[in-house]
């Protein structure tokens, strides 16, 4: 017999709804937005000593970041691996194959931050996990923030080891042919970042 309305699993939702109705919102910073047209994620690999530049045309980010409270920051990036642009059409077709990015099975690479810590004026270190082609590695990514009018540019670079992610396996795994280390460079244009 139910005489009193019970709040079981619905309880948190009801409380949240009541809180919203009462105009009480939790003190979370407004989410910052990525401006893709002015952002860039690029990489440099070396083939027999030759630097080969590539970049990703399509990526997205969810960013909550306040320079005054870096520890509360949360950064999640998703990169569309099939959008890699690297020199010739022949090389791009090669890059999508199973030995390289295997974009059919692994269409996206993701980066999810665990913590953000300050590293000097306008500088931060984002500690997080990069997942690429089914393998994950922890990374420490240095980021420099720079004001550019209404935008804030977050830029930096970090090396990864392609063989950690089985990028270029089989015959291509020889690092004298394609170097193991790949330098990733990024410049993310953000709106809504609070000034320093």
């Amino acid at each position, binding site marked *: 017999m139910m005489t009193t309305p019970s709040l079981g699993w619905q309880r948190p939702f009801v409380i949240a709804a009541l809180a919203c109705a009462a105009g009480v919102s939790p003190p979370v910073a407004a989410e910052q937005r990525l401006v893709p047209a002015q952002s860039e994620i690029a990489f440099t690999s070396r*083939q*027999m*000593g*030759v*630097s*080969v*530049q590539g970049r990703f045309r399509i990526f997205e980010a969810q960013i909550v970041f306040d320079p005054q409270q870096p520890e509360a920051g949360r950064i999640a990036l998703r990169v569309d691996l099939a959008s890699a642009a690297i*020199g*010739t059409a*022949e*090389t791009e077709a*090669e890059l999508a194959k199973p030995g390289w990015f295997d974009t059919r099975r692994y269409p996206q690479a993701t980066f999810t931050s665990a913590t953000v810590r300050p590293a000097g004026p306008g500088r931060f270190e984002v500690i997080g996990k990069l997942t690429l082609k089914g393998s994950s590695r922890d990374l420490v990514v240095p980021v420099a923030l720079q004001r550019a009018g209404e935008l804030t540019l977050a830029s930096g670079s970090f090396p990864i080891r392609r063989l950690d992610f089985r990028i270029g396996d089989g*015959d*291509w795994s*020889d690092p004298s*042919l394609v170097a193991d280390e790949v330098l990733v460079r990024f410049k993310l244009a953000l709106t809504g970042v609070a000034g320093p």
Partner: protein
Amino acid sequence: MPVPTLRYSRVAIALHWLLAVALAGSFCVGLYMSELPNSPFKLRLFNWHKWAGISILALSTLRLAWRLTHRPPGDVAMSGWQRNAAHLTHRLMYGLFFAVPLAGWAYSSAAGFPVVLFGLWPLPDFVPADKALAEAIKPWHAGFAFALAGLVALHVAAALKHQFVDRDDLLARMWSAPR
């Protein structure tokens, strides 16, 4: 007994045969590698081909400097048109010794795969990385290479004709060391 012919200098003979082998090898590798599907072997061949091309360019510079500062032996007996054809062929070949590798170097730069000599020394790009430009340069590199191959064939045929038809012992000028 034929009169002993004046010969090319030791350096000229060495450069002639070294470049003959390098040019023939690079031409054959170039023909072969462009038909290959993408593979580590193809990447290696492309880089070796580029390194050979830059070496040919450097040796050709040395060769041209030597040629301009050292008098070659005089012409063997032949008709006026043959003499003109021989001189024109040599001038065109010298031009192509530079044109073929320079067009290849430019194609590499334009294609976004600049030349790093022997995997160690990055060479400057004298054209920007630009796909459309790369496609425009590519047929020139190939065209110059085929033109050079044609002239080399003509040069070889003419030398053999002198040696075995005219029997003027022309090959000795470019074969044995001078006394």
